């Protein structure tokens, strides 16, 4: 009960803050009429954001794996290809990459679909981070297990397939759910390359109606609806995993 009261009190404080900001800074009253008229465009944008994020994440899981194995390759050229990719991604804002990808790389390769170029850009971007998630999880597998696998004659593929991946899958789930939330948020930057995603749809209505605050409100709520479940999922998975780890240590 105390927990619930504290939660709603905290929520109330935020509501007061936003009410103060909106009454002090806004001249007009809040009116969602125009947004209701354009709800289909907005809903389509929201669905595009969800789809583009899901597609990007699936692609990013694969990109991350390729980058990880390139990094671990005996062929140095693969190691450097992977490292250079990661360095560029880690050191450049996504918005810059998105613009370059759409206006230059997309054009050079004649890719017209904004959806696919957006999804691929996000996948290559998020994939760099996911490669590091894989790396951390795989390196947590004790050297003894690799040696045991080698001793008993498991091939490299069999070692990953039957020994490494089944163990790392649980430990990578929380950071992956976190990455999914980040992907959804990052997809907003694709508005800069005119992808018809959620933020772009809202901005279109904003430019027609000049009702900016309402648009930002819808955008905030729209993203939170997608990301809050993921944030809760991350916490739940971490709790479960911590319990598992502690339980195993106790035993």
């Amino acid at each position, binding site marked *: 009960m105390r927990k619930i009261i504290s939660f709603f009190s905290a929520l109330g404080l935020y509501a007061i803050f936003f009410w103060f900001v909106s009454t002090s800074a806004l001249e007009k009253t809040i009116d969602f009429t125009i947004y209701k008229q354009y709800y289909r465009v907005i809903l389509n944008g929201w669905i595009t954001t969800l789809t583009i994020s899901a597609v990007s994440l699936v692609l990013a899981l694969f990109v991350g794996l390729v980058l990880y194995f390139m990094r671990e390759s005996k062929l140095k050229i693969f190691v450097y290809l992977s490292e250079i990719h990661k360095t560029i991604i880690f050191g450049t804002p996504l918005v810059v990459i998105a613009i370059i990808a759409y206006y230059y790389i997309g054009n050079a390769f004649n890719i017209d679909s904004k959806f696919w170029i957006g999804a691929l850009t996000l996948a290559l971007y998020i994939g760099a981070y996911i490669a590091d998630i894989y790396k951390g999880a795989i390196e947590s597998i004790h050297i003894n*297990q690799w040696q045991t696998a080698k*001793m*008993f004659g498991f091939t490299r593929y*069999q070692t990953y397939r*039957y020994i490494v991946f089944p*163990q790392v899958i649980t430990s990578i789930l929380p950071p992956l759910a976190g990455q999914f939330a980040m992907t959804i948020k990052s997809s907003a930057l694709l508005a800069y390359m005119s992808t018809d995603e959620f933020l772009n749809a809202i901005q279109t209505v904003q430019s027609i109606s000049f009702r900016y605050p309402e648009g930002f409100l819808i955008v905030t709520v729209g993203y939170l609806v997608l990301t809050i479940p993921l944030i809760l999922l991350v916490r739940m998975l971490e709790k479960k995993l911590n319990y598992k780890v502690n339980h195993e240590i106790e035993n």
Partner: protein
Amino acid sequence: MKLRIDRLIKTYENKRILDDLTLALDDKQVLALIGASGSGKSTLLRMISGLEAFDSGQIVVNGHEVVESEDADYRKRIGFVFQDHNLFPHLSILENILLVLEKVHGRMRSEVLPEVEALLEQFGLSEHRHKKPHQISGGQAQRASIVRALAIKPDLILLDEPTSSLDPILTHEVLNAIKVLVEASIDFIIVTHEIGFAREVADTIVFMDDGKIIEHGTPEILETPQSPLLKAFLDKVLSF
């Protein structure tokens, strides 16, 4: 087993871990490698297993020359029991054993299951077969590790200090399990600190110190050590 080791050298960070070892054994069943920690006995065992490469020299096991980088097929015929059992933590005891047989040796589960169940029964592990390694005692886990090595029907089993992380009760339990290998006439090489056990089961004892073989022979060498180093070692380990 037939074992030939010729002028074996292994250097690590400018230190000779194995310093020009030579040894020849014919038709022996149990070889015990003894010596202080850091004497090179576990390293030698790993070289024999094909798990680690050496700098120079030659190891020939039952007529096969061991070459680390290309010896996956040789390793498949060698059973290995690690110091800390090294069972895969995400699999049950039964699955740990079946995984090797099914995936590496290409055997059918239905075909090998009765044999594996019988081995688990023999080593007193039947009731624990569906438990994960962290749910059983260190002694039970080490016995399961012996079953895993035995299940592949190896030409030779290598045991690397299988009792060194166990308390005396569990040590006793595991040593009894190893005696089963002796009774079943299975060839094995064991690295151990259990001198009494080595004397009882081994037909050859090799004593190592500072990367060298100082003395080797029948268990009698433990009664009448010729070298001062073995004498000093025995005085220390048998002083309490």
